[in-house]
């Protein structure tokens, strides 16, 4: 996954939480970047036809943007599940965030062959918990 994918995922999740357009401030907060950086990237994504941005209203993903965002979210879910189920990483959220910028979707697909993932993925993702909603209990791992 790359920076573009991380932005699309963050916008998708923010839109889900807001049930409407996402403010650039909320997107910046989710990605822990400055509002200026978020604005710059949002401009690029708009040029690529992945979202529409209206001042004072916020950001709305296009159909192409939603498709790519859902793929990115699915990759993220695979990385999280892999870290939890296979490597038993306690700090899986923080590590998944770091790894999603380096792990490509083809690699994620291979990791997916050895984890248990529900067919409804990524719809079961819980943005507030930052983890698959079906994994809350299993996420209580004890070793790294």
């Amino acid at each position, binding site marked *: 996954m*790359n*920076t*573009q994918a991380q932005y699309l995922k963050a916008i998708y999740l923010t839109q889900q939480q807001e049930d409407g357009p996402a403010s650039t401030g909320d997107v910046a907060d989710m990605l822990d970047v400055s509002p200026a950086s978020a604005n710059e990237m949002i401009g690029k994504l708009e040029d690529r036809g992945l979202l529409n941005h209206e001042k004072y209203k916020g950001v709305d993903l296009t159909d192409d943007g939603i498709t790519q965002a859902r793929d990115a979210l699915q990759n993220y879910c695979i990385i999280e599940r*892999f870290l939890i189920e*296979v*490597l038993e*990483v306690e700090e899986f959220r923080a*590590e998944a965030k*770091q*790894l999603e*910028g*380096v*792990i*490509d979707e*083809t*690699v994620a*697909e*291979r*990791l997916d*062959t*050895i*984890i248990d993932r529900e067919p409804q993925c990524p719809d079961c993702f819980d943005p507030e918990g930052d983890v698959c909603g079906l994994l809350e209990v299993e996420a209580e791992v004890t070793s790294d």
Partner: protein
Amino acid sequence: MSLTQPVVSDHQLARLLQIGIVLEEVVEARSAKHAEETSGEHDQAILDLLEHAELESAEHRRQLEDLIDDLEADTVPFEEIEMLVEAQYEADKDFDGVLYDQLCNEETAYKFYDDLIEAIEASDVTFTIDRERLLDVLSEIREDEAEGVEDVTDLMEDHQ
């Protein structure tokens, strides 16, 4: 244009090498499983390819384990991954055919090492492990994976 992000720490490098080990173990286990389940159904060239893939992945795993050892991180036991591959193998309907699966294996591994090398080269971090040695090992493995893609592609063309 590449958008891969740089490796940020020894810890993350170790984690990525662990993922490399797991990918190699998946190839190793799946190749062995394919060979076991299809012997007699395929010609010798395909069985040779599977055996070569299995041995090569085991060698790559050992090379990665040497690196990870220097970072004082743990490897991922092969038996553990073999069990996971075994558990999911029957249910896996996405990869149609032995050669196609092998092609996915080789292409995925190539992509992984290519991205990893790029992410290390883009990093300012001074790793505990010697950077030159690290990049030499990873580049050598990437080269093997590129050859692997060619070998599978050639065999696929021969079987058309």
